[in-house]
């Protein structure tokens, strides 16, 4: 047995749906425009979330402390001989001098990363690459890639396999090479490395160890992984906040549009309300009907907008929003960040978009519901 209250709601919804379908052109236009506004906002929210996830996943592989030498305030190559002076600090579990550098792909002008891995040891003529890098260049195991060395000579490297990437960016831009090949390619002399990396057992000792590093190597700067994590979280929320601030203009425009549409009832709608009231509908029923109309429209637009935003995460380097969020990371090959769509983000988006629309339509709905049926019937 259905309770009468529920039956009333069900019947009003049953009336609303065909009523919306009768004015399908107008309602479709509203859903499309509203959906596009939600799509823009959702793209920013989802993409910034995904990029934060991407950067944190990349950082997870990094050691607790990175030590870089500075010269005139700039990053400088560090002597490998400096390693013992930092590994002997109490609390440092292990350390190594790291060889890595950026390499501009001459064919595409994209920025790739050359890294000499700790394990596995590669032969001088071998290289490993990310699966996306291999796929995009139609390379497979055994193929030979020719890269220019720092002197301009050509260096032939055989693809020995694919890297297991932690992130989409690693998949698209990471190349593992041997130490001799690396030094040939980028011209870093023996005895020099890009940075020193330290593993630390106890996270609470990190600030103390960092202080001791600056005492042992006054011209070096220690970078603590935790600080980078905080930086990435804040920079992506800053950037998404700026973009959402800009997007508030179309959102406001849409709210005004929604208000105007709901306030300016057409002759047919007035007649419809008049007839409904004449056949016994209460003012409350008409308000409820208008609320359900707004609910159906906004839910449809919300579903459309969020679905488009999730789908857009699969489009690498879409021209909308991506450059503003990624900044100079557009110099890397295009990559699709792993889509991370959280319930919190969806709920925030829902509150930001659906509620303003409901509020913008409920007051005009109340005005509409108080129409005198007699006046409408007389056509005045």
């Amino acid at each position, binding site marked *: 047995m259905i309770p009468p209250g529920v039956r009333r709601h069900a019947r009003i919804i049953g009336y609303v749906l065909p009523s919306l379908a009768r004015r399908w052109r107008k309602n479709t236009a509203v859903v499309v425009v509203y959906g596009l506004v939600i799509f823009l906002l959702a793209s920013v929210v989802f993409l910034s979330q995904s990029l934060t996830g991407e950067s944190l996943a990349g950082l997870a592989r990094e050691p607790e402390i*990175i030590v870089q030498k500075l010269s005139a305030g*700039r*990053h400088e190559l560090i002597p490998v001989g400096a390693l013992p002076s930092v590994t002997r600090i109490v609390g440092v579990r292990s350390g190594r001098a790291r060889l890595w550098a950026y390499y501009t792909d001459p*064919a595409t002008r994209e920025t790739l990363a050359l890294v000499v891995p700790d394990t596995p040891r590669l032969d001088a003529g071998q290289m490993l690459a990310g699966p996306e890098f291999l796929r995009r260049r139609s*390379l497979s195991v055994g193929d030979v890639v020719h*890269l220019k060395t*720092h002197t301009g000579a050509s260096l032939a490297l055989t693809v020995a396999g694919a890297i297991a990437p932690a992130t989409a960016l690693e998949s698209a831009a*990471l190349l593992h090479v041997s130490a001799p090949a690396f030094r040939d390619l980028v011209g870093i002399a023996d005895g020099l490395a890009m940075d020193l990396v330290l593993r630390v057992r106890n996270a609470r000792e990190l600030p103390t160890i960092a202080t001791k590093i600056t005492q042992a190597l006054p011209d070096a700067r220690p970078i603590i992984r935790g600080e*980078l994590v905080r930086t990435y979280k804040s920079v992506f929320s*800053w950037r998404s906040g700026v973009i959402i601030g800009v997007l508030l203009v179309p959102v406001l425009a849409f709210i005004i549009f929604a208000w105007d549409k709901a306030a300016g009832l057409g002759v047919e709608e007035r007649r419809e309300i008049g007839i409904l009231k004449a056949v016994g509908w209460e003012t409350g029923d008409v308000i409820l009907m208008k609320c359900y109309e707004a609910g159906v429209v906004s839910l449809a637009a919300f579903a459309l907008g969020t679905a488009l935003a999730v789908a857009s995460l699969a489009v690498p380097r879409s021209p909308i929003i991506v450059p503003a969020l990624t900044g100079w990371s557009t110099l890397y090959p295009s990559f699709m960040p792993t889509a991370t769509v959280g319930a919190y983000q969806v709920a925030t988006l829902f509150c930001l978009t659906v509620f303003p629309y409901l509020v913008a339509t409920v007051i005009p709905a109340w005005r509409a519901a108080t129409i005198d049926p007699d006046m409408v019937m007389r056509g005045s």
Partner: protein
Amino acid sequence: MRLTRSGGFFLLLGLLTAGVALAVTDASSRLALGARRIAANRALVRAYDLTDPCLFTDARYTRHPSLADRHSPFQDYPLALEHFPTGSLSMPPSHLAAGGWAHAADGNAAGTSARGR
């Protein structure tokens, strides 16, 4: 005399036009002052061999885009994502963007790659 609505409208229009005319007059009177300052700045740029107007001060590559390279935005660790706030306000200059002119100027950029089985 009572001001009609259209009269009020035209009065407002007249006032606004006068305001615009005043602003234009003021701007043109400042042109000479601006020209002196620009000339002094030009002399400064020549004397110190300056490269860029410094629009942003946080990151080296957005402070002097003409001297930017492909390492400094991502220098913290391999494949670091660029993370300075102004990185999204000032896009990479054309000599760094794909297909740019800095083929030779860029450290490792020169060259071609090919593949074979």
